[in-house]
């Protein structure tokens, strides 16, 4: 038996919007600690990890650890039917192959039940070790979103480099190049607008902008985003979900090709 009630139902909707572009099918895991998900995109370049802790729900009951395979496109269709202020309850019975979404209007005069079929999904669960990152950047989420969007109109990849001066996002494309530097700025009156850089050592990594852009779909969940970088690890882009948990995206960097060896006499056009 599983029953999760969230008065602030729009949160479910926002979470869904933040995931569905990246992953088509995924297993949601429920346990006494909370409601979580880990899923990779089809090419295994990016991973999303979601946690909504049980304390954050208005009612949380989960008798045993379960996983529910859902198609995120379908789930999103169902959740779109919920009003912005609706209370959302998610229910499933043991041994059942469906999950029910119940939407209650705030004044309780309308109650809707949507039942969705579950799926069997074979998915690999990756073990993500705790790690110390060489650089951690915290910045306003809409600022990061804007940067990724702007850069992707010029190039396919972004080079993120963190130095003492600040964090630099740069790209290069057929029409030209772009560099955006955000300096450390700890404005006290508006903490959400601060750019805070914690750096052990300078780091520079390259990523595909396409994925970054789909991560920024989580911006409505949080005013700030935290980007953790290490030269030998995937980047972590984290959006905290107030009092409940987080949504974290991991993205494998682009790596220098070890097989690259220019032929003698032929000019290698790579820079």
């Amino acid at each position, binding site marked *: 038996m599983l029953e999760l009630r969230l008065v602030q139902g729009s949160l479910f909707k926002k979470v869904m919007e933040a995931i569905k572009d990246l992953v088509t099918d995924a297993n949601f*895991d429920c346990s006494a600690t909370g409601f979580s998900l880990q899923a990779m995109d089809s090419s295994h370049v990016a*991973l999303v990890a979601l946690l909504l802790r049980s304390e954050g729900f208005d009612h949380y009951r989960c008798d045993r650890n379960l996983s529910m395979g859902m198609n995120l496109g379908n789930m999103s269709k169902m959740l779109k039917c919920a009003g912005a202020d609706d209370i959302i309850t998610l229910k499933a019975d043991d041994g059942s*192959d469906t999950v029910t979404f119940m939407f209650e209007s705030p004044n309780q005069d309308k109650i809707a039940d949507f039942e969705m079929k579950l799926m069997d999904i074979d998915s690999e*669960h990756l073990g993500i070790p705790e790690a110390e990152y060489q650089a951690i950047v915290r910045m306003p989420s809409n600022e990061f979103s804007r940067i990724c969007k702007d850069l992707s109109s010029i190039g396919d990849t972004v080079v993120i480099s963190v130095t003492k001066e600040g964090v630099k996002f740069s790209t290069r494309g057929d029409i030209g190049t772009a560099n955006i530097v955000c300096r450390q700025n700890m404005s006290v009156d508006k903490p959400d607008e601060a750019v805070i850089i914690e750096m052990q050592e300078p780091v520079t990594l390259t990523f595909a902008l396409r994925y970054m852009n789909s991560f920024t779909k989580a911006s409505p969940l949080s005013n700030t985003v935290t980007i953790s970088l290490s030269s030998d690890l995937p980047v972590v882009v984290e959006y905290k979900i107030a009092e409940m948990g987080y949504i974290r995206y*991991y993205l494998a*960097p682009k790596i220098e090709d070890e097989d690259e060896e220019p032929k003698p006499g032929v000019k290698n056009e790579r820079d």
Partner: protein
Amino acid sequence: MSIDISRRFVKERRREELQEERNSALTTPASPVSVKQPIPMGIKGLTKLLADNAPKCMKEQKFESYFGRKIAIDASMSIYQFLIVVGRSGTEMLTNEAGEVTSHLQGMFSRTIRLLEAGLKPVYVFDGKPPDLKKQELAKRFSKRADATEDLAAAIEAGEKEDIEKFSKRTVKVTKQHNEDCKKLLGLMGVPVIEAPSEAEAECAVLCKNGKVYAVASEDMDSLTFGAPRFLRHLMDPSSRKIPVMEFEVSKILQELNLTMDQFIDLCILCGCDYCDSIRGIGGQTALKLIHQFGSIENILENINKERYQIPEDWPYQEARRLFKEPAVSANHEQLEIKWTSPDEEGLITFLVNENGFNLDRVIKAIEKIKAAKNKSAQGRLESFFKPVVSTSLPIKRKETLEKASRETVNKKSKANDRSPAQLLELAFRLSTFSYVSEHFVRLSFLKGRGY
């Protein structure tokens, strides 16, 4: 860069190529049969057997999801396909000025670029000397080709368009010259080539076992019998056919079929392979049952009804087994380094445009694609940083799918047979022309035995 070529010639070539393109565009999708091999190769009926009995060993993958992966490709198989499909209309094929066929070059060039553009790293493996046992099979193919040549002549005389195309495809043979041309082309493109001492599939399988490549791509199911841990089909199909890549994993096959690798090899030999005949009347399903029952070909031969099933007189199954288990492959894979290099632009233009009449503009564009692709192949994968772990949650929905239920009955059936194997099998075989009846019979006798 100096390109010595007259404009007029280029124009003519372009017109011809457009025509040829149109032809190939017409023939390829309209007759999907054309890509099927007219001569059966590999293991007979293995795909279906696996689909029925081990559905989890195969999964469809997007072509694009193999970016950054090193893939060993059975070159001869690909060249054969190109000769059949690329730029053909009736008996006409793509040729150069001298009238030599260039379909294989066109195919190899464009398909390889497609792989490179998607970020894959292909390494082509060419066949060496065929093992003696395969010569019989090759002789058969030769005579089929000879028949087809006669049929073709008849069809041309009768003017039957469809037959002309059908039979001329059957006359296709990959010659040494085709292989040499392709090796030269790949060398110029900066794509590595490996020459197998004997069978290319065997060499590919070893490359994959040693972790030199991620997977083996071929259309020939032999690769699985050679033990390639990961095997891809339809990787080299034209994008226009929109067929997803089918990925097979040997470990999952063994797990799902509940066989050891040796038993799987025996199963493949029983199904029918390139090296020796199979037993008449034993197809994939029966072979699988027999292997489950008796464990090896030797034991099957001891227990089988020899009047019902005629064992070929000279049946070198042991030799075939040895070829699958210990095929002739290069010894020094440890030191082997596979390298992808930049394309030799001038070399490609000389070879393709000047010697083989390709369109200059198209070749230049293609070279640009190769160079652009080289910069693209560097996206990392998460698996190289994080390792899979077992999830602790149980699925809410208990999996009770049809296949599982049916597999259980198969297992139970074999258990039932354990009780009085000889008797039951005798009966089953006697009835096996009515295999439906026989299956039910076995099931009934099992149920009776359990007291139902």
